[in-house]
């Protein structure tokens, strides 16, 4: 590899569509989520930090970085320090798989869809360890709940992803995206899969109605109760990046990812724009779901997933199976 192309790759990783771009996107998505949520509730939401409050997540982030960092007595120091870092780096790594500016992600290899799903599970496991590390009753219960949820939604999520893969005859994100040139999968046979994916994503992100692990009225703050300052900032950023990742993954798998009418020569820019529009559409759906429901009980969540999501996912799978 020549030096120039190496530098070019490095720039790509650092700026676009690498770390910096993801960072900005993550903050932007959080802002959109909060603003839209407020709008649905007839409020205004963040307003004064930057135009329309668009810098609100940035302000939160910087403020948290600058706060005093407390390590409470009795926590597992190693885990307490390591989990935020792990969580952040895993989520960034996952995002690099997204096909943002072309049908291929920054990282793209045979079978990367499998890796993406596995990363999601890892993120959840890290949440569990983060909760256990602070050895506080609330956080342990929160951690335990996040694990229990995992049992509920993981399998439907996987099946819905598998049916897409089956449809495209591939487990590589880039080829799934390019196979949607003719017809997006959501318009095709995969509409049920999309619904399952949305609910599973909501659960993965621990948002209402699946926000049991950090339910404020019940657990105060759940698994992250003892984290302050930098560590909390990292966790929040990781959550936002995960949000980007899941919205992006939904867009890539069901909405044709970055595809759309293009003027030749401007593909990367247009692709990026299409990608962002589509994933924000997914985000808006997620936000509406958040505003629409009350929190479920943990047993309700599990029975919901097994009674409804799983059969839906299996029907989806059978439809695809029969079509091919």
């Amino acid at each position, binding site marked *: 590899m020549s030096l120039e192309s190496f530098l070019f790759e490095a720039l790509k990783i650092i700026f676009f569509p690498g770390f910096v771009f993801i960072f900005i996107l993550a903050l932007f998505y959080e802002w959109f989520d909060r603003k839209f949520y407020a*709008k*649905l*509730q*007839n*409020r*205004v939401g963040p*307003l004064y930090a930057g135009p329309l409050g668009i810098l609100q997540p940035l302000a939160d982030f910087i403020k948290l970085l600058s706060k005093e960092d407390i390590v409470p007595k009795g926590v597992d120091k190693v885990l307490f320090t390591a989990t935020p870092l792990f969580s952040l780096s895993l989520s960034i790594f996952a995002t690099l798989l997204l096909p943002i500016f072309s049908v291929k992600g920054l990282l793209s290899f045979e079978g990367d869809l499998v890796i993406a799903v596995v990363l999601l599970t890892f993120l959840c496991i890290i949440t569990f360890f983060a909760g256990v590390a602070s050895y506080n*009753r609330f956080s*342990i*219960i929160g951690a*335990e709940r996040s694990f*229990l949820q995992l049992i509920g939604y993981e399998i439907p999520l996987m099946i819905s992803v598998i049916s897409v893969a089956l449809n495209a005859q591939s487990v590589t994100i880039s080829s799934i995206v390019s196979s949607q040139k003719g017809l997006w999968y959501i318009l095709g046979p995969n509409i049920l899969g999309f619904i399952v994916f949305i609910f599973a994503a909501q659960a993965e992100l621990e948002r209402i109605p699946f926000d049991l692990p950090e339910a404020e009225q019940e657990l105060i703050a759940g698994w992250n109760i003892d984290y302050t300052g930098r560590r909390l900032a990292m966790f929040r950023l990781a959550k936002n990046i995960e949000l980007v990742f899941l919205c992006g993954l939904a867009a890539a798998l069901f909405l044709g990812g970055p595809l759309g009418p293009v003027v030749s020569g401007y593909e990367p820019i247009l692709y990026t724009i299409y990608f962002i529009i589509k994933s924000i559409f997914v985000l808006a759906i997620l936000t*509406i779901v958040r*505003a*629409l429901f009350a929190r*479920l*009980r943990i*047993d*309700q969540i*599990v*029975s*919901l997933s*097994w*009674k*409804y999501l799983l059969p839906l996912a299996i029907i989806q799978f059978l439809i695809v199976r029969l079509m091919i």
Partner: protein
Amino acid sequence: MEISITFSYNTVFDCEVDDIMSMLSELLRNLFKKRATVLYPEERDKVHVPEGYRGKLEFYREKCIGCTLCYQVCPSYTIEIVVDEKGKRPVFNLARCTYCGQCEDICPTKSIHLTKQFEVISLDKKDLVVK
């Protein structure tokens, strides 16, 4: 601490569809409704402060005759009676005032008035004194 995990799978989650729909339509209607928020510091004139709101005290020294009735009805020892060149007069320490309006009601000469000014804040308790 032991943490026992027991599930019951027979809890059915069955929110009926039209319940969700009625909530959803309410949500979407709100999306296009005017915001209910009053942007308070900017839109101060739109804040609902009716006539007769019991806010910050105002005291008119000229009218006061020093009867100390207000001192006698105040429930929270807000009022201190001091003597100045004209005689007895009350001094109000808003750090203790409950804005109950008893002093305004009792004052025979209407020297005390609770205004519509609802913003009473301070970084130092000593500033909260009305003379």
